[in-house]
């Protein structure tokens, strides 16, 4: 899962990536929990839920004869992406603010222990959220093409 997220590593930075891989500054190995797997699994589930809802839930805006235009599908994709964006951002910003990210990943220090440079910023959390948005959208597209064929009203959405 982390490999997929690392396609977007240039967005959110290598250090935040290392943290999410589970790198521990104490042990110098990847002994912490791999957060990519957790966040990725949530992205898979949320996009699956939205895809199932869009194609099969008998509600307005979902499996409905007036909701089978491509833009209806796109709206649901964006909704799923935004939720994943908020989860990715919320998860990392929470760890960032609570000091859960190891010091060796957060800063470069000189021999006296003074901070020379900061390696992870708040914007990296935003950009990680954006990565989550893109990845969940990919999952959404894959789920759509796997599951849409049995939908009564939307089986030819987004492409007729």
């Amino acid at each position, binding site marked *: 899962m982390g490999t997929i997220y690392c396609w977007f590593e240039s967005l959110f930075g290598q250090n935040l990536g290392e943290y999410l891989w589970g790198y521990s500054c104490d042990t110098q190995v990847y002994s912490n929990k791999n957060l990519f797997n957790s966040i990725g699994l949530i992205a898979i589930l949320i996009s699956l839920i939205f895809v199932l809802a869009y194609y099969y839930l008998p509600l307005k805006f979902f499996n*409905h*004869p007036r909701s*089978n235009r491509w833009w209806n599908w796109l709206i649901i994709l964006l909704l799923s992406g935004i939720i994943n964006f908020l989860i990715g951002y919320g998860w990392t910003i929470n760890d960032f603010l609570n000091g859960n990210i190891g010091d060796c990943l957060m800063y470069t220090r000189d021999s006296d222990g003074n901070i020379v440079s900061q390696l992870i910023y708040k914007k990296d959390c935003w950009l990680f959220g954006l990565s989550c948005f893109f990845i969940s959208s990919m999952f959404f597209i894959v789920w759509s093409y796997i599951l849409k064929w049995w939908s009564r*009203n*939307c089986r030819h959405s987004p492409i*007729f």
Partner: protein
Amino acid sequence: MSKLYVFGIGGTGARVLKSLTMLLAAGVDCDIETIVPIIIDRDISNKDLSRTRLLIEDYIIVNKIAPKNGRNRFFKTRIELLNGELCLQLKDNTQKFDDFIGRTTMCRENQALVDILFSKETLKLDMTEGFQGNPNIGSIVLNQFDDNDVFKNFANDFKDGDKIFIISSIFGGTGASGFPLLRRTLQTPNIKGTDGQVLPNWGLVNKAQIGSITVLPYFVVGNPTDESLINSDTFIDKTRAALSYYKTEDKKIDTLFYIADKLTSTYPHHKGGDLQKNDAHFVELAAAMAILDFINIDKLNKNVHRNRDNIIDSTTYKEFGIRSNLAEFNFDHLTDTTKRLIINPLARFLLFAKYMGYSVAKEDIDGKEELLVEKNNNNDIFNKEHRHQPYARKRFIGDFRQKNAIQKLETIQVRFFEWLLEMEKQNRKFTPFNLFTSSAIEFINGHLNIIQPRAFNLKNWAIVDHELNGQTGKIDKSLENESRFIELFYRVTEKIINYKN
């Protein structure tokens, strides 16, 4: 594979056949596979006849694509024309009555006798526009039934088990005179053609089950706009006279239906021709239902009473009535049997037509407000949705709507709307539907127990599209697109409108 040969005599015959065609298009229960309409009318240019002819020709085209083995009932019953002709070809087409009887070649004494029997106006009558309410002329002119080949094609086509039905009005000219003459000819043994040979199958024709409807006055005509001899003041007297003669038809007809309406509408007065275009009337619809009653297998024991030698034991007489004598009535005022017969088919076919965008609108024409059937783009659900809905994918897109059979189908849908609208315009208004509403569900008038799908998330035309998308996978994939279209819409309208009493 038996057939019903329906003889429609005169203008009323043509209009009843039009109503029958509308019922068959809508898919009423019809216990016979093929109907062969035959119109007998000297006035072949009258508008009622030409409208019926066009309708039947379109019906035949649509019937060819209508699925016969699926659930579909729209256009299911076959209509076939004898040698491609709707009208029976009468051999003698002499224009003036005095030429027909050869008055000018008669001796002076005979000419004097003819002058006593017929008025000058009658003798100079142009019969190409019918008999203009003169059954005495009709009974002479139509006597050519039994002396030439007019029935040759009919006899050639006739098979054992086929049935005959005759539609005629009793208060005009052609129908009143034509009915007893036609009945007599059909039951006369050994009719010969011009070649001197007995017509083939004529024995089968003689013995065939035969029903008839005699339409008593249900309209009057206003002041004449031309040199017409029609006078509606004489309608009742003519009816009385003809009925007394029809007593002799007892035991010669299996079932004889009567229908009339005292609350008459007044039609514009034309002697015939292109101007004779009368609005549809509920009486004609009821008369068409009489035909379906006659061929109803469940009613065979009530309608036909024959002995072991296949001779008619007794004639069954039937009349049609509605439950309340109201100037405006709808399905609520029909009997349960009639409701069961027509509510579902008419409502389903109307729903189909509405989906295709047709409705009635008020138009201002030369300062006068007119009701017209038109396609409203805002209500054309098919046009709006076919690009998006799965049921139409790869099948009903592109030039699908321009295909000949689909265009004919839509033409009939327009005529169907007009037919319903015309019945609303009569003094006795039949208003079963709200023809103005764009609603897919709330368009049937009256308090009827119609089971309709209710989904909390679906409204109006989305219900129809939802059903279309659901039903499309259940249809035989080998069907051509046009056939599939009809099958699909029948299944969907059947799901959406289901009257039970």
